[in-house]
């Protein structure tokens, strides 16, 4: 028992150091934005895929925003991927097609496997451009973002690109405010630091792009995963394609406004991420692939972020057990202190990231909400643990693949 605990302590120390390194890098080191200055070029044709499943509340907003984008109109095709919607999504899209001919080519999917990856895979029959950009339907892209997300593809080493997600419904309630802080830490600090350090910025599957030839080389969209973005990141990496992060390519999104929706969302992410962890950790670390040593290490750590939830919980339980049974040196006090020290310093490393992000964004007052993140953290740790346990039991019982769509809260477009 004590040796398991030691391993857990080592693991959480590694993640703690990782958080601190990222934060300090973001605050004090040179920031890499190599492609953001490309404002004039012979822009390539792009296809913008808009993933939509029952999106009547939001689909018009994103189509309006994309039509206003500053990108040569004759080189940009918008493809709403209407995946088996049963609401007015199809009607709204068709209305746009009629009103603005030539700009939008809809893909109405009425059957097939559920899930975003499966829908995108089917929609590829409409794609004939080298650059593919992807947005979820609840996003509101700005005028310059199409150029910004396309620019990195002038680099022949880039297979994927990821922009920054910014919550738009921040002020709705405590949850949205906490998610706003989490997103800021995740993108402004975590993703940008990985970009700076030439590690593995993660493809997020929205506000994102992928090179068609790279996608073809790695075998296309993987429809058997809950997080096609994580899966894509690692397959690109193994084949020598870089995913780059563009911190200044910001795009508004709607974050969940209820805890139940948030819990379902994070459980889906955790399951998909764990799926990728099982599939890619060993090939990445020890396989004959094109990733650099630092990418292998960071990639493996990134794959483990969601499994660290149950591991940390297990660590707490073990530390208490060791303490009360007195089976380790100093009656287990050392073990308990290790875990407690992590709770005091290690967990705070993520909070440190978030505080740094809020500072970099110039949002001084919202940092006051930082203590509330303890609640968000508690919900997350139990949710991802539940996800991991149900995933293992699902494997044993061979349960069906299940896709949870994130509910929208915006008022429908008039």
């Amino acid at each position, binding site marked *: 028992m004590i040796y398991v605990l030691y391993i857990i302590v080592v693991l959480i120390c590694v993640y703690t150091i990782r958080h601190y390194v990222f934060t300090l890098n973001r605050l004090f080191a040179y920031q890499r934005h190599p492609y953001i200055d490309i404002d*004039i070029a012979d822009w390539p*044709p792009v296809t913008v895929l808009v993933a939509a499943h029952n999106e009547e509340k939001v689909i018009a907003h994103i189509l309006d925003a994309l039509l206003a984008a500053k990108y040569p109109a004759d080189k940009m095709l918008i493809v709403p991927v209407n995946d088996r919607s049963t609401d007015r999504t199809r009607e709204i899209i068709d209305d746009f097609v009629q009103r603005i001919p030539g700009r939008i080519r809809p893909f109405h999917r009425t059957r097939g496997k559920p899930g975003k990856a499966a829908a995108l895979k089917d929609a590829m029959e409409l794609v004939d451009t080298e650059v593919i950009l992807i947005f979820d339907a609840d996003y509101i892209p700005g005028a*310059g973002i199409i150029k910004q997300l396309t620019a990195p593809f002038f680099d022949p080493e880039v297979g994927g690109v990821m922009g920054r997600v910014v919550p738009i419904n921040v002020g709705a309630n405590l949850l949205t405010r906490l998610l706003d802080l989490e997103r800021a830490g995740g993108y402004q600090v975590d993703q940008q630091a990985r970009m700076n350090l030439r590690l593995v910025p993660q493809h997020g599957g929205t506000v994102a792009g992928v090179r068609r030839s790279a996608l073809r080389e790695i075998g296309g969209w993987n429809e058997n995963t809950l997080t096609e973005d994580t899966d894509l990141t690692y397959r690109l990496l193994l084949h020598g394609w870089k995913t780059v992060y563009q911190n200044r390519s910001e795009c508004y999104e709607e974050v969940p406004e209820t805890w139940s929706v948030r819990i379902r969302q994070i459980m889906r992410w955790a399951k998909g991420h764990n799926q990728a962890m099982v599939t890619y950790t060993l090939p990445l670390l020890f396989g004959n692939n094109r990733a650099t040593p630092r990418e292998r290490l960071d990639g493996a750590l990134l794959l483990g972020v969601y499994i660290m939830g149950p591991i940390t919980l297990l660590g707490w339980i073990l530390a208490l057990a060791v303490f009360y049974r007195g089976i380790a040196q100093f009656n287990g006090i050392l073990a308990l202190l290790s875990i407690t020290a992590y709770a005091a310093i290690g967990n705070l490393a993520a909070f440190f990231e978030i505080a740094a992000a809020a500072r970099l964004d110039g949002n001084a007052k919202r940092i006051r909400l930082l203590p509330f993140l303890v609640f968000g953290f508690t919900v997350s740790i139990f949710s991802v643990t539940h996800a991991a346990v149900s995933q293992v039991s699902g494997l044993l019982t061979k349960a069906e693949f299940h896709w949870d769509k994130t509910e929208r809260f915006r008022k429908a477009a008039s």
Partner: protein
Amino acid sequence: MNSFLTVAALFVLTGALFALPLLPAVRELRRKSDASPLNVIQKHAGEIRYFADSFRTYLRPLEPLLRECARSGQKASGVMPDGTEYLVLGSGNEALALPFGDKDRLCPVLLASASDLTVSPDSAFTRDIYAQGRFVGGPNNQYRAVLADYEVHLGKGSRVMRWVHAGGELSVESHSKLHGRASSDFRIRLRPGCSFLRLNAPRIEFGTSPSEAPTPNFNVAPISSSPTLTRLLHEGDFEIPSGETFQGDLVVRGRLRIGSGAQVRGSVKSGKAMILDSGVRIEGSLISAAKLLIGPDCLIQGPVISEHELLIQTGTHCGTPHAPTTVSAPRIKIAGGVVAFGSVWARDHGEVLGSA
């Protein structure tokens, strides 16, 4: 005190201690003093002319006065709605006779001219300048911002702190410093010794004797409509021998050298330093994660990016008149005779080499 009260007090104190760090959080949650979404630029795409366009909009209330002064040849002064003092000149040559032309004197007012505007040397203009005609600045002047509908000529040793935009040609004499954005709808000429950060024009010429030779054509389909090219990914160093043609995209994780007269029919990336010898032709983009040295008389069609330092030698063309492009690096050194079409962005420092 009985034991019940002691326990109760302990609970209350513990609760208070726990709640203490939450008080500012609760206050923020209730009052929402910082609950708006991060300000993301939605309407524009960071165009280099953004400030110039905004300044034009700002000047709209002065248009009737400019017309009036142009007709009468008189000058007028007043205060803008935001409190900025202005001076409108009917004849731009009047500026030469104004007292702020004296050495080390400041011009603290917004200057707008209904015609060509010429300002005397050794002056500092702390407010923006607008000329409906040409603008000619004497040597050793310092400007905050300059906008002219036609040509702008900045004398030797000039400094522009924020931006300058010319509807016609923007020519900058030697040893001038352009700290912000410099743009022209026609052409920019920078003389040796000039430093810059952001340049944008259909044609940008560096040095005393910019190449007047027409940009050679590749005589191939533009990148955007080319079929997907194959990609070679090479670990370690790599060299394309002189005179060779490489077909496809090339990614080299180490150093890369491209020999004289070689041609790449695709894009090129190096993880370490990249050197192009003379007369190299690149049909796609040229990207280096480290230093990038472009030899003389090269022709690069796509974007040129270096993550460290970029040196471009004489006679090289970046982009073409029909396919303008972007050149970007933290530090850029450009020799005389280089021509770029589109944008040249030096994040930290850009410099035109050669003696005046």
